[in-house]
């Protein structure tokens, strides 16, 4: 078994990044002009990387499958971005952000990477403000903060419920500046379908022009994958419809190890599903847990009455409500991390206390916060004897200013007014912590191929804290990759342009064309979605919020079965030489059908529970933590990096042992 070298720099953790930057090789500005870099994906990681690399002088070719880089799925991130600024003077520091992230990830992340992330977090906010990102501000003109789950400080910067949008538009504007100068060549509506290796190094990609269907060759000295996560393997998730694993999976099949595929984040606050036709699930930002209280009725009679429509949630008295997060986790209450909150919701619903027809929903209630804010605002406005109705009215105004767009979104989907009646929520697949294995420099096991943002595995361990995805995407793209990639490219200053008329490109292009023709010629009987939905159901039922040995073994078998049927019986109308959304979906689902099996295999082999990965066989049986997930540090404090061998079920695991020198390994407690 090959050993994985994470290339973590020597020295104390607080000096590692500085020392590393001082030691690595640089490329002089004149030589940067001779070097091409491909960036796949234009979300926060890809967008910021493209802009930064172009600004440094490299020639960047950026690719996105959307019609504009501004539409990458980072745009949908709602709640905020963390940074250890300590503007609130509440004891925050780089170390505390580092500690919270490692602990939140249930001690399955690489310490050195996380520390670096915390270290550069403050700069991200400086950078974004300088770019004109309109963050929320206090009346004094300074930046406002709020709290997110799993922490005891207020370090989250935000722009209403549209933080991802504003940060992405910031990165997009930085890209636009470089596109205007010709330093970035932008390829909209293009999808990467293969990685091209020359002499073992990543030297280009094969992409399909989604408008014309043309298969194109693109070469570069390095390839950066910033193609996001793979939550859509579940069919239903909060991801955008187009989000996919294809770029990452193609690199995996060309030698990039895939790490911890089973680490998936199931987000506790999403709008419950309503029917079989459902195409996606909608997130309600975690920021709502700052002010919303989660509950189900205490008594089964009330549950039944609610489901039958005889009782409204607002009619249930305070003492007959079970605020189960506040009850079970008094220290963190409604702000426990996502994995803990999701499992607690599932526990209550499995016990029969779910509050909608499907039995899969709990309440998120803002009435307490509305009255609290209303009282405060009444006093500020000089209304000392305000009536209850007036207080409620004022409170609703405050809540509107904080979460207006989320409340509007909820009302449009569910057709209920969340200012007047509690929201109904249920967990849904949201983010994947697993991804392509990278070393400290963000390089994969394929030389010259890098992975950034959600596409890599490195910073969030087995569970990501809220408002940390935006932080990681921008940290990787603005501040990490632009330095570390130079170390590799310094060897390429005399290489010259990489030609595309070589056998390697011929072969890769032929493989892509053959694959596409193969799919077009199946002419089966079922649509792509038919298979994708079946895959999603297996994933959700057997590889979802709680997993066991038998279920995982069955899942591997069933996924393999679906994959075989898919490859014999899928029907793709139209032709390959035109815009063909069904063909696009088929190529993505084909990759999901391989990833799904590896995902289940990874979950099967990790017999401990950690973060978002909950094995029913590994639970605390007694003591104060009874019923909580039980980690097994002795046997599982490692990263499982899988090597492709031609069949997902036969993949080989390589282990990167995780060392904890600056944080003591202990049980995560939010009690």
């Amino acid at each position: 078994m090959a050993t994985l070298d994470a290339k973590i720099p020597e020295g104390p953790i607080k000096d590692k990044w500085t020392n590393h930057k001082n030691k690595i090789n640089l490329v002089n500005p004149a030589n940067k002009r001779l070097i091409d870099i491909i960036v796949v994906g234009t979300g926060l990681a890809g967008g910021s990387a493209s802009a930064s690399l172009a600004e440094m002088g490299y020639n960047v070719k950026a690719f996105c499958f959307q019609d504009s880089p501004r539409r990458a799925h980072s745009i949908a991130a709602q709640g905020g971005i963390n940074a250890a600024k300590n503007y609130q003077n509440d004891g925050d520091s780089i170390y505390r952000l580092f500690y919270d992230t490692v602990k939140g990830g249930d001690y399955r992340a690489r310490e050195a990477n996380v520390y670096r992330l915390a270290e550069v977090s403050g700069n991200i906010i400086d950078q974004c403000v300088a770019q004109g990102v309109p963050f929320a501000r206090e009346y004094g003109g300074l930046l406002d903060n709020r709290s997110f789950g799993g922490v005891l400080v207020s370090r989250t910067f935000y722009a209403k419920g549209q933080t991802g949008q504003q940060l992405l538009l910031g990165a997009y504007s930085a890209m636009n500046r470089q596109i205007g100068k010709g330093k970035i060549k932008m390829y909209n509506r293009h999808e990467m379908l293969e990685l091209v290796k020359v002499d073992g190094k990543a030297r280009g990609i094969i992409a399909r022009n989604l408008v014309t269907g043309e298969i194109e060759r693109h070469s570069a000295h390095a390839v950066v994958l910033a193609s996001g996560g793979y939550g859509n393997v579940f069919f239903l998730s909060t991801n955008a419809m187009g989000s996919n694993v294809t770029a990452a999976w193609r690199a995996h099949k060309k030698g990039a190890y895939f790490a911890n595929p089973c680490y998936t984040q199931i987000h506790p606050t999403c709008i419950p599903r309503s029917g079989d036709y459902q195409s996606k699930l909608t997130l309600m930002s975690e920021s709502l847990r700052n002010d919303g209280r989660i509950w189900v009725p205490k008594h089964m009679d009330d549950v039944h009455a609610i489901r039958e429509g005889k009782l409204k949630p607002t009619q249930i008295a305070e003492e007959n409500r079970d605020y189960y997060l506040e009850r079970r986790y008094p220290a963190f209450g409604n702000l426990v991390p996502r994995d803990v909150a999701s499992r607690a919701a599932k526990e209550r619903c499995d016990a029969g206390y779910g509050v909608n027809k499907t039995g899969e929903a709990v309440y998120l209630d803002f009435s307490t916060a509305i009255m609290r804010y209303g009282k405060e605002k009444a006093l500020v406005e000089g209304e000392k004897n305000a009536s209850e109705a007036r207080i409620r009215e004022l409170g609703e105004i405050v809540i509107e200013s904080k979460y207006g767009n989320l409340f509007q979104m909820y009302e449009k989907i569910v057709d209920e007014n969340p200012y007047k009646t509690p929201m109904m929520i249920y967990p849904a697949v949201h983010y994947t912590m697993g991804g392509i294995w990278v070393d400290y420099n963000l390089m994969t096991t394929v030389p010259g191929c890098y992975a950034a943002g959600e596409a890599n595995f490195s910073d969030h361990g087995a569970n990501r804290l809220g408002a940390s995805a935006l932080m990681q995407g921008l940290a990787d793209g603005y501040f990490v990759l632009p330095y570390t990639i130079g170390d590799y490219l310094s060897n390429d200053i005399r290489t010259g342009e990489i030609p595309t008329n070589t056998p390697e490109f011929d072969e890769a292009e032929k493989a892509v064309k053959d694959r596409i023709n193969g799919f077009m010629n199946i002419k089966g009987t079922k649509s792509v979605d038919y298979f994708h939905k079946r895959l999603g159901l297996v994933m959700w039922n057997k590889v979802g919020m709680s997993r066991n040995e038998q279920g995982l073994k069955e899942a591997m078998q069933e996924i393999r079965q679906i994959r075989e049927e898919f490859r014999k019986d899928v029907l793709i109308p139209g032709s390959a030489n035109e815009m063909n959304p069904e063909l696009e979906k088929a190529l993505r689902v084909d990759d999901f059908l391989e990833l799904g099996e590896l995902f289940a295999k990874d979950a099967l082999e990790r017999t401990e529970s950690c973060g978002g990965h909950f094995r029913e066989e590994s639970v605390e049986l007694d003591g104060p933590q009874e019923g909580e997930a039980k980690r097994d540090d002795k046997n599982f404090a490692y990263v499982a990096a899988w090597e492709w061998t031609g069949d997902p079920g036969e993949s080989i695991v390589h282990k990167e042992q995780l060392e904890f020198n600056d944080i003591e390994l202990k049980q995560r407690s939010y009690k």
Partner: protein
Amino acid sequence: MKVTLKVWRQKSASDKGKIETYKLDNVSEHMSFLEMMDVLNEQLIGEGKVPVAFDHDCREGICGMCSMHINGEPHGPDRGVTTCQLHMRMFNDGDTIYIEPFRAKGFPVIKDLVVDRTAFDRIQHAGGFVSVPTSGNTQDANAIPIPKPDADKAFDAAACIGCGACVAACKNASAMLFVSAKVSQFSLLPQGKVEAKRRVLHMVEQMDKEGFGNCSNTGACEVECPKGISLENIARMNREYLKASLSSSE
């Protein structure tokens, strides 16, 4: 619910295109409009026909990818929503629904309901940014306090999702609301003031080059905008433009 759909079908940019009629028998009022389109496409695939191509991605009203002119209105009859947030409960059993692509000279049709909106990107390339390096070595984020009302207004303008409904709604196919939203966001913030003059001149110049029409104050764009971008922004852009034209040395 049962609905009859009259859908614009056009094979490619060079094809002439025409309306086709489809019937759907089993539509739930809780479906989103795009989920209804998914059902239509599954039905078409089942019948061996080519499904309708349409743009969509996040399906939660923020990416700006979905378009569609529904019964004569961009994003359909509801207010403050994109097509993906429009629900079938806005329609009645037995309705006939007309579905067309966004129509504008600046947005040529690619296929069926998919249009090319890269003109918007090119307008942004011309000046939709603050020229700061991405090194992070700027001043501390709190070094310049920004009055909350300015920051809030800048945010309201920045909420534009670039979907193009404003252009599709306008009888002149004007892109003034879109362009003014970006110009306003930056002109309201101290970070954007430095380049305010050249920004507005360059962006307006590019907007004209792309073939978008002029604003004649009809206000349809504001009504149809899914994000409630205000006409105030157009007034602000006109002021900025006038100021820049009279005093810029460029």
